[in-house]
């Protein structure tokens, strides 16, 4: 009987401490990835780097309304380091029916980041490469992508 009480007490200590000390990570989205507008002509590609710089080949930009996606990562306790997983590609669709591919997602910080105390928060930006086909139909193209962070 005594052994049983000790064991259960030990179990309670183990679990309450495990629950309290388990670090958790959260991510929130403050801005979407916007490539901006282009005159398609013969097609080409747009590389939007996570630092916000853009390089365009083939197509021609109209205006400067391009911006990488912005996220905030928060880690509750423990090690500040987190790993970033990005998709391989996604497809953008226009209401009129055309599609474009977005791939080569890149983040800043790259692959791993640090949400250091005291704030335990970090900002993460994501860019990618847009592929515009020859004679791409005009329209507003939209799609989604997922960002995963792991401790």
């Amino acid at each position, binding site marked *: 009987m005594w052994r*049983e009480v000790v064991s259960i007490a030990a*179990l309670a200590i183990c679990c309450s401490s495990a*629950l309290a000390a388990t670090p958790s990570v959260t991510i929130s989205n403050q801005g979407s990835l916007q490539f901006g507008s282009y005159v*398609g002509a013969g097609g080409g590609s747009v590389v939007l780097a996570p630092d916000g710089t853009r390089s365009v080949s083939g197509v021609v930009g109209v205006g400067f309304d391009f911006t990488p996606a912005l996220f905030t*990562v928060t880690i509750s306790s423990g090690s500040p380091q987190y790993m970033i997983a990005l998709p391989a590609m996604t497809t953008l669709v226009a209401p009129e029916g055309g599609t474009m591919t977005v791939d080569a997602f890149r983040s800043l910080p790259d692959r791993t980041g640090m949400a250091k105390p005291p704030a335990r928060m970090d900002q993460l930006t994501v860019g990618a490469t847009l592929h515009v086909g020859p004679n791409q139909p005009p329209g507003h193209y939209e799609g989604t*992508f*997922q960002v995963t*962070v*792991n*401790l």
Partner: protein
Amino acid sequence: MRNPAAKRRVSATRRIAALLAFLFAVSAQSAVITSTVSAGIQNGIGMNKVSDLSFGDIISPTGISTVNVDAAGAATPSGPVFLLGGTVTPATFTVGQAGGGAGRFWVQVPVSVSITGAGPAMNVTNFDAVGNVNMAAGCVSTTAVQPGGPKGACPKADPPFTLRIGGRLTVGASQPPGTYSGLFNVTVHLW
């Protein structure tokens, strides 16, 4: 006194607790979010700036001097001035058109802009596009009035063409050292 039944219960409780702790740990150590990605494609005329007009590094001259950077990127000094190299580039743009237009373009540049820095402002004048492929002097104007042409010597923008603009910097006698910069507009007009 040993009680085998109680011991088994404890072991089972431990296993469940260990499993619960594991589940909590896994669920808290990863987070996923979905974001939107968007792009617009439109018909009409578009223009990208690829590089700025840059005269490079210049030694302050003893007398008033000029530095000309042509549309091909060659720098030519005039007067008692020495060029040290550095970044020497014409302003470079890409101009494109889509959506059925196959017209020709002419280019409007300013007469003069001033660039400012550590000392008195300096002027950049003589903006021109000479040295571009498929673009004659008759395709460039310093006003909103269409230049003389001929139209056939001016470029189409489908597929996009590269436009290079040079200019001439006037450097004052004993111009104070420093970085000088300013802005100028280039407008492309459909002929």
